């Protein structure tokens, strides 16, 4: 079996526990051609080594699906990006244990002669040097990097403390001082690393879970199956020769030839120029192009490496966004605080060395204690650790969080504005029998262009013979290239009254048909609305649907402020209008193209994974599936997140204020300072773990 091996990476759904992982492993390992299967129950990742000539990737995916664990192919987990801190931690722990054993024997003394003591100091020095050189790089490297760019980060005072203690300690083996501080050096590194390891663990979990959800949800495309049905597949599962429909706002995941007559794309991801480019039938569309206005039907010609470009870019944007804001805050904090810490240390040194006549070593130790004890590691961790934990909790509940700032904003939300169709209600298409078959066919062929809930309800599971190329006008409807149209009454200049939602379809021959929908409230709408009303949040409905329909729904669920016939831009204006005082924070929940301006205008916004790509781009939270009830965990988690950030910041401020004078007075040895600082960081991390949804 030494032929060409291939490797399949994927994300596994429904993995409840390790037992499930083993069951899946056994299932797959039983297949012919599979060489090795590893299912990681912690990260929900799957890796299969197999012989491609004996078994196809699709067979693997099917087999996993039959076993009850749908698998989504994904890029290999990118663990390698940031090396694990466990190894430096182990090295520092080893060093600390050894140096301690030497130090204790020196302290205990017994009959130790000067030569033996010297040997002990020397052994300590060797170990401490090795540990500092290896494990200390975790702090030195970023500190140096920041210094070169003219910035100060919190790694700088830590590095200075480590290096100053190490330098002062060398007085002992050189015979210039009675005692060394090698134990302080290594325990400082060890204890600091504990905090870093915990922090890294939470961040990895969060990133991993976010990556998994992204792979499962973002970048799903409508593929036209050979039998004419539209099937929802992920970009990674597309094959050459497939026909796919890329809707407005989506990024083309593959290279392909355009089948539909024409459209416009934005190639800025590939070329950097953001002008809209017109494309015509048979044109080559490159992966990474963003589709504007009109859905494109594409024949896939290349997948794989080329195909991943667009998706990668999309994913990167999501992560950069979240990291960006948290990082900026932390950097700004460090930039103002780090010089103060260093200033405090210099002051301490000067005070003891020049004024109080302490020895060089003693004064250095005071300075080191100040550096360590005032290092606001706890304060620096307070916000990121809590946000990471909250994000993690929400991810587990099926909510993608795209920025830490959004958590803060949602926790203060005083107004929530809902879109109606697709958010509060689900449309169910009731009357199709009235339509002649060919009209119904033409209508679904047009509706397939849109991700609007009404269009999705129309298409459902029906077969589509031909997709009519069409432009989608937000808030109105679709205009087909052949002259057919599908949309609201207003689009056709009709006046309709009554409490029922209806769309209209004009066939290319000009006949007009009414397409009534029944709207059912989503199961959890009433409960969710009640929850927020009890919490004192003002609720509003802004819908593009007819006003009488909107009022009926609003009465049913008990929302008093409801408005229909709202144009996309008017929704955004309504939100701006609400924002009178600084205490007013407006959240917007919607899924359509027509909600995009409002989602952007709101302080914080929520969209759905089944909604339009444009609304997802604009949203801060994306709810996986269509469950409105997930707004409740978003609200609760973001509120407890804000509360705990407040507690953590208060705690670390008090800790720093109390410890500084103690260190300046010489009551805290460097060793005690290291323990204090590490335990304050750990306290903050543990407090963050209290966030539960």
């Amino acid at each position, binding site marked *: 079996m030494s032929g060409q091996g291939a490797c399949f990476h994927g994300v596994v759904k429904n993995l409840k526990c390790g037992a499930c992982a083993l069951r899946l492993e056994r299932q797959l390992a039983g297949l012919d051609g599979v060489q090795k299967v590893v299912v990681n*129950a912690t990260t929900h990742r799957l890796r299969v080594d197999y012989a491609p000539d004996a078994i196809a990737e699709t067979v693997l995916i099917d087999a996993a699906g039959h076993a009850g664990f749908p698998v989504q192919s994904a890029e290999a987990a990118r663990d390698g990006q940031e090396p694990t801190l466990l190894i430096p931690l182990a090295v520092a722990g080893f060093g600390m244990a050894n140096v301690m054993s030497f130090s204790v024997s020196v302290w205990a003394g017994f009959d130790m002669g000067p030569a033996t003591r010297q040997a002990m100091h020397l052994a300590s020095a060797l170990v401490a040097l090795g540990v500092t050189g290896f494990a200390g790089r975790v702090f030195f490297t970023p500190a140096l990097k920041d210094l070169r760019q003219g910035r100060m980060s919190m790694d700088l005072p830590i590095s200075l403390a480590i290096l100053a203690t190490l330098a002062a300690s060398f007085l002992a083996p050189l015979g210039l001082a009675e005692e060394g501080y090698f134990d302080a050096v290594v325990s400082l590194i060890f204890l600091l690393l504990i905090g870093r390891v915990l922090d890294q663990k939470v961040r990895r979990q969060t990133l991993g879970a976010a990556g998994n959800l992204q792979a499962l949800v973002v970048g799903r495309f409508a593929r036209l199956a050979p039998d004419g049905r539209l099937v929802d597949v992920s970009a990674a599962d597309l094959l050459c020769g497939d026909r796919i429909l890329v809707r407005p706002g989506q990024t083309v995941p593959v290279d392909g030839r355009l089948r539909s007559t024409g459209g416009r794309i934005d190639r800025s991801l590939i070329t950097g120029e953001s002008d809209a480019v017109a494309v015509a039938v048979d044109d080559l569309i490159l992966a990474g192009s963003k589709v504007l206005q009109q859905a494109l039907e594409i024949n896939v010609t290349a997948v794989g490496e080329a195909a991943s470009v667009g998706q990668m870019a999309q994913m990167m944007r999501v992560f950069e966004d979240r990291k960006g804001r948290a990082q900026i805050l932390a950097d700004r904090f460090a930039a103002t605080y780090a010089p103060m810490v260093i200033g405090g240390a210099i002051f301490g040194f000067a005070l003891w060395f020049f004024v109080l006549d302490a020895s060089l070593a003693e004064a250095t130790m005071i300075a080191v204690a100040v550096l360590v004890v005032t290092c606001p590691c706890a304060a620096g961790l307070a916000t990121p650790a809590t946000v990471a934990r909250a994000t993690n909790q929400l991810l587990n509940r099926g909510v993608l969080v795209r920025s830490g700032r959004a958590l803060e904003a949602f926790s203060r939300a005083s107004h929530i504005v809902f879109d109606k169709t697709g958010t509060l209600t689900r449309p169910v298409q009731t009357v199709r029998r009235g339509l002649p078959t060919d009209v119904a066919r033409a209508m679904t062929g047009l509706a397939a262009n849109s991700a609007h809930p009404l269009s999705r309800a129309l298409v459902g599971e029906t077969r589509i013979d031909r997709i009519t190329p069409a432009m989608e006008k937000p808030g109105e409807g679709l205009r087909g290239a052949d002259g057919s149209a599908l949309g609201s009454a207003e689009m056709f200049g009709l006046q309709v009254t009554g409490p029922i939602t209806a769309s209209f379809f004009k066939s290319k021959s000009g006949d007009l048909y009414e397409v009534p929908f029944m709207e059912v409230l989503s199961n959890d709408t009433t409960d969710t609305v009640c929850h927020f009303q009890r919490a004192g949040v003002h609720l509003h409905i802004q819908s593009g649907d007819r006003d009488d329909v909107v009022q009926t729904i609003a009465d049913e669920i008990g929302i008093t402020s409801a408005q229909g016939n709202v144009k996309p831009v008017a929704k955004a204006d309504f939100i701006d209008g609400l924002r009178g005082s600084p205490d007013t924070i407006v959240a917007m929940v919607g899924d359509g193209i027509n909600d995009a301006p409002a989602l952007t205008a709101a302080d914080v916004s929520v969209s759905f994974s089944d909604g339009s790509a444009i609304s997802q781009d604009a949203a801060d939270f994306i709810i996986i599936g269509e469950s409105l009830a997930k707004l409740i965990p978003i609200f609760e988690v973001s509120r407890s997140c804000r509360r705990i950030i407040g507690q953590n910041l208060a705690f670390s401020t008090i800790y720093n204020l109390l410890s500084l004078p103690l260190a300046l007075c010489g009551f805290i040895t460097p060793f005690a300072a290291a323990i204090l600082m590490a335990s304050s960081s750990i306290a903050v991390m543990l407090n963050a773990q209290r966030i539960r949804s």
Partner: protein
Amino acid sequence: MNALLILVPVSILSGICGVLIFVWLTRDGQLSDPEGNKYRIFEPDELE
């Protein structure tokens, strides 16, 4: 005290061995799935 000249290097070397084993375990990915491994201990050994 001459015993120290032997015992101290021996203890440091054995400690380094321990660290190296840990490094190998981490790189090999044996610590990457605590959730799955707690069930794997019940699995009968696979015979190659």
